[in-house]
């Protein structure tokens, strides 16, 4: 256990860990209530990548920019570093990462002499060919996360970005109602109407998708790297018959996996920021990440771990996953992400269930998002008048 190693190496530091509820929502609430109340009970804390701008903006995270050499930062995958950067400053160190990947049935693609798809259209065609050829009513084409929750936003972003769309432009303008975004979402909905994805996909989360794919009832699955070990575990029906490839793009844009994962940050009110930093540096070190990768299968954020022969030997999937994860991009990096996501979740769900057209849903999403963005502007003007 990494923490015990840290204790052994630093007998003078008294380290206490606190276990948080397993649900991400509840962890967020725990942090918000404690930090809002000015708690300094914890010095170092684990952060879901989407919380960082919010917590940084709230002034709860210590700016760690001065503690990290730019050269040392170069060893990290860029997506997670971008996600932890708010207004040009670094607020957390990437600990391990997650990114969308595409699983496929290697045996089935080989049978029909198909290559792993590089675009969503190729995926559609491949699925149609295999489904027609197999003529198995229980075999579906493509399962993904379509339940109304955070996972749906991750998937939708991969479709939106594959066609060149975005949620916000670089200068913060909403891009949801723009043609590229609409095109991406239309493709997502079409998967269901064209019977490539089963109707149940509108309630599917990571685990349900994995169950369907794991029973051999789907040709393709969008999921996170964690599924790899389980799909290839002893007793799995698809063991040894699964391939994994990068999230597809389109003819004009290459695929962009959505970034997930966890960072370590330091409480700004920590009375011992230097000791806290020692722990963060230890846990995010090459050695710790290598151990974490080998023991738990979590994907490292350091390039040096992926290329490390010892780690590669212990976990052969590391070099396999590395090129797939490298291009991952964070979800919109904004302090208002959670609010924006709640709005997106419901509008995206309306699109894929066919309740609203992509245009109508994105118009509605933009209108609601503007109310939230106005809050930010209202705050900004308030702050400037105060000065």
């Amino acid at each position, binding site marked *: 256990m990494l923490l015990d190693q840290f204790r052994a190496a630093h007998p003078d530091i008294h380290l206490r860990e606190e276990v948080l509820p397993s649900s991400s929502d509840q962890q967020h609430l725990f942090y*918000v209530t404690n930090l809002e109340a000015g708690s300094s009970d914890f010095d170092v804390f684990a952060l879901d990548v989407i919380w960082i701008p919010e917590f940084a903006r709230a002034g709860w995270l210590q700016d760690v920019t001065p503690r990290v050499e730019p050269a040392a930062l170069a060893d990290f995958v860029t997506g997670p570093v971008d996600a932890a950067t708010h207004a040009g400053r670094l607020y957390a160190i990437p600990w391990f990462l997650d990114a969308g990947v595409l699983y496929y049935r290697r045996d089935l693609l080989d049978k029909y002499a198909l290559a792993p798809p590089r675009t969503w259209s190729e995926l559609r065609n491949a699925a149609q060919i295999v489904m027609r050829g197999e003529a198995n009513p229980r075999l579906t084409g493509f399962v993904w996360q379509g339940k109304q929750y955070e996972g749906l936003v991750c998937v939708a972003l991969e479709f939106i970005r594959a066609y060149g769309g975005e949620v916000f432009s670089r200068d913060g303008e909403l891009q949801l109602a723009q043609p590229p975004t609409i095109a991406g979402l239309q493709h997502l909905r079409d998967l269901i109407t064209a019977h490539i994805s089963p109707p149940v996909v509108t309630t599917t989360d990571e685990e349900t998708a994995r169950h369907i794919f794991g029973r051999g009832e789907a040709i393709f699955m969008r999921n996170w790297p964690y599924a790899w070990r389980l799909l290839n575990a002893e007793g799995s029906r698809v063991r040894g018959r699964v391939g994994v490839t990068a999230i597809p793009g389109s003819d004009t844009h290459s695929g962009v996996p959505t970034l997930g994962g966890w960072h370590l940050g330091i409480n700004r009110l920590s009375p011992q920021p230097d000791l806290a930093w020692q722990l963060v540096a230890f846990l995010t070190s090459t050695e710790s990440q290598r151990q974490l990768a080998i023991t738990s299968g979590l994907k490292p954020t350091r390039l040096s771990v992926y290329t490390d022969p010892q780690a590669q030997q212990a976990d052969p999937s590391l070099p396999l996953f590395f090129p797939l994860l490298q291009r991952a991009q964070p979800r919109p990096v904004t302090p208002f992400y959670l609010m924006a996501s709640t709005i997106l*979740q419901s509008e995206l769900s*309306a699109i894929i269930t066919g309740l*609203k057209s992509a245009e109508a849903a994105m118009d509605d999403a933009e209108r609601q998002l503007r109310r939230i963005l106005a809050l930010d502007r209202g705050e900004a003007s*308030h702050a400037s008048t105060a000065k």
Partner: protein
Amino acid sequence: MRQRQSNDHPVLFVLPALSLMLLVAVYPLVTTFWLSLRDEFPIFHISRFVGLSHYVTLWNDPRFWQSLANTAYFTTVSVFAEVTLGLGVALLLHQTFPARGLIRGLVLMPWFIPTVVAARLWEWIYHPHFGVLNALLLYSGLITTELNWLGHPTLTLHAAIVADVWKTMPFAVLLILAGLQTVPDDLYRATRVDGATAVQTFWHITLPWIIPAVSITVVFRTLDALRVFDVVYVLTGGGPANTTETLSIYTYRLSFQTLEFGYGAALAVVTFMIILVVSLFLQFLLRLVSAER
């Protein structure tokens, strides 16, 4: 003399109850209302008075209207089903038959299961691939393809209603059964002497006699259903596309997930007002019914 003394300080006796009420009911109510007049985003250091603007936003918020419609539909259908089914089952259980006590106990079972557990149970029943419901329907030939009970815009709310009816119908049975036991046996004997049919007995003796019990059940269940949260939240999380989002779920999302305290408080106040009005109306009806008797 003694009696007089105690009458001199009635306030003293009400005080504990009164202060408790002030503390747990009035104080939160007032603070919630105050909060609803403000923009409160503690994390972003936003704290300002905005008057009634949250209520204006709410009026123009389609998501609010949808959650209101969902809640109203859920309440109407589930309460109607629970009370009619509950009445039927109560009448059955009121008969004398072997092992009546055991059967009564079994019927009440779902009511003793914690709601979250019951909802998880139904989640599996509804599972499109592994669920028993689709398996039965497919086997009996009623459907030919698996139905997506929890992912279909119109099926899902009904699926949630069925789960709720299963869970809370026993409560209706319990109350109505208690009502049935108050019907004097003489009345039944008299009707038998007069040669009344079973239907006549039900309409002219049983039903009028248990109307108060049924009405109380309706009041309890309606007020409960209007603030429904757990069963729907666990089953669907409000999805797909908010088609099962109730007022309580929307309030929870605003106040505890996106942390829009001010707007969430406005929604809570409106929900409170709706429940208050419905509750006053039901009490009025109840008084009407008992006055008739």
